[in-house]
């Protein structure tokens, strides 16, 4: 008891110190491991690239101007955005019903079902992409089955297409969306839905007017997470999209490593980071305003 009393009476300065000790290690990791490299990367992006000389120190916006004025790079950014938006919309559409069912089920196997959702995360992205390659190849599983059933004469081109990339990323991101939505939906009182139904609203109206606005924090969190992951996808576009399907993540890598052009690679990385951040913040602001009561 005496100890408890002492804790209550501890001076404010001491509590601040405890908080600082608790926060310091994570902060140090973020500062040293993320902020400093980002600052360095930004500095690189202002340098000049001279073939054979690697990187020449300068203070120029030429790399950003090159990105913004070259239709090729703008198209790569647009393609990345398109893929990320389609993946996010698909994951939310497919994930919501699953998350709702998981949140509301009274089954004693609920934990097992949750484990099944998490299970794919135990396998790395590249390994899963390899699985899709077996599935999508011209002599792969899908073409063999469709051909065997006599549904197709010549094999369908499934590999190295935008569709293959979208399917691959959706499969990776879906568990994140389901888990985020499920935890939020579980916190929504079921009686609110019952009240809506009792007051004469149909299931769709109940979803639109009661459930969705209340689940909006989950939709925003899950959607943002999914969007960020899709914008920065690397292994899936490289393996399932093939050499001609170009999006931002692999472009950053190729510019750094394939062309040894660090200044332009750094600028592309910054454009990707800024676009992802700006769109994530903008969507959060817009949707929060729309559903604020």
């Amino acid at each position, binding site marked *: 008891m005496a100890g408890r009393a002492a804790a209550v009476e501890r001076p404010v300065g001491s509590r601040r110190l405890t908080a600082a000790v608790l926060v310091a290690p994570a902060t140090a990791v973020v500062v040293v491991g993320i902020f400093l490299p980002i600052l360095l990367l930004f500095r690189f992006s202002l340098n000049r690239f001279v*073939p*054979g000389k690697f990187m020449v120190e300068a203070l120029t916006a030429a790399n950003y101007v090159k990105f913004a004025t070259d239709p*090729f790079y703008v*198209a790569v950014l647009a393609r990345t955005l398109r893929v990320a938006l389609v993946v996010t919309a698909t994951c939310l559409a497919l994930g919501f019903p699953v998350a709702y069912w998981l949140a509301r089920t009274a089954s004693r196997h609920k934990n097992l079902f949750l484990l099944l959702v998490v299970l794919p995360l135990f396998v790395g992205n590249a390994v899963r992409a390899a699985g899709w390659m077996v599935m999508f190849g011209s002599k792969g599983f899908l073409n063999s089955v469709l051909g065997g059933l006599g549904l197709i004469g010549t094999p369908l081109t499934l590999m190295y297409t935008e569709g293959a990339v979208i399917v691959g990323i959706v499969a990776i991101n879906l568990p994140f969306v389901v888990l985020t939505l499920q935890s939020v939906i579980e916190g929504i009182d079921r009686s609110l839905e019952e009240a809506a139904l009792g007051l004469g609203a149909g299931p769709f109206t109940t979803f639109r007017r009661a459930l969705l606005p209340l689940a909006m924090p989950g939709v925003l969190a899950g959607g943002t997470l999914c969007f960020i992951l899709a914008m920065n996808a690397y292994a899936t576009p490289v*393996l399932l999209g093939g050499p001609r399907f170009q999006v931002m993540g692999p472009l950053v890598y*190729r510019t750094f*490593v394939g*062309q*040894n052009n660090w200044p332009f690679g750094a600028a592309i990385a910054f454009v990707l980071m800024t676009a992802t951040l700006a769109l994530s913040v903008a969507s959060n602001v817009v949707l929060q305003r729309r559903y604020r009561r």
Partner: protein
Amino acid sequence: MATHESFHPTRRHFLQGAGAVTAALALSPRRPASAQAASRIVLGTWGGDYSKLLTKNVEAHLAPRKIQVEHAIGGDPERRAKLLAEARLPRGTSDLQALSAANMFEMKEAGVLETLDYGKIENARNLLPQMKYPYGVGHIYSGKVILFNPKMIGHAPTSFADTLDPKHGEKLGIIDIQYQFTMMAAALASGGSMSSFEPGKERLLAVKKAGVRIYPTNEALAQALKNEEIGICIMWKARAVQWQNAGITVETVAAKEGVPLYVSGFAIPKNAQNKDGAYAYLNAMLEPSAQEGFAQDMGYNPTVKNAKVPEATQKRIGFTAEEQQRLKDLDYAYIAKNDSALKEWWDKVFKG
């Protein structure tokens, strides 16, 4: 109320603990990866078969000298980026780097490679003169030839012009990471030269329009050859031999425009910590038996005159006297100067 024993470290405890940690570190048999010890070298190399064959064929010769070799495995772009990034450090993390001749030249231009003292490499007296670069030693070589499946391609091609031809449509395959040699072959087929790839661009765009298939890696193209998704391509003769061994139906032709040379070698970074060990390695890799091992196992030609390759193997991997006349060394200065622009064209226009 139960009392708990608590730990109150005294200065004595602290000193005892610190002493124990220091002793444990000093006596630990494994040190952190660095190239410091005289008996140990760090070798940057590709993984897979090449790394395994280095262990099997080269490193056996170093055992009597008690030189331990640690492989730092990675693709060559990543290893080159690391070499450049480490250039300012007084002590680098590798003692030797396995690189193609073109990449060795590029690194030499960037000022990160040691100028070699051939007096320290006894076996270099047997080295083919073309493989003796001031900044690196050629280890193995092969040439870019035409590969075709006679079942799918009626008439055997004789030239790069026959091969990089829109008439093949989707039966023609190209490897993304082989962009330099593909542009080189297209240039030779279109009036260009080893120092001017521009004339080949139009031809490449024509085959693109006709539906050429582009594969990300050598292995992906091999799979496509096996599946008969494609029937014609250009590739190292050594790879063709490996693929034939794996049961893939391909025949090879040395193009009449020439056979661009691929040399893979080793270079010592300026800031290597164990240069003596690195020289010992260079000497070991030029041992005739080590070179013969690579010819047998990997299908590449030896770079020393005293290696004896069995006649049957020589016939498959080597080049006839007449073909040797057509071996074309690369214009390394042209490639180093233009590589970035060529790659950008490849990514933006050809693949775009």
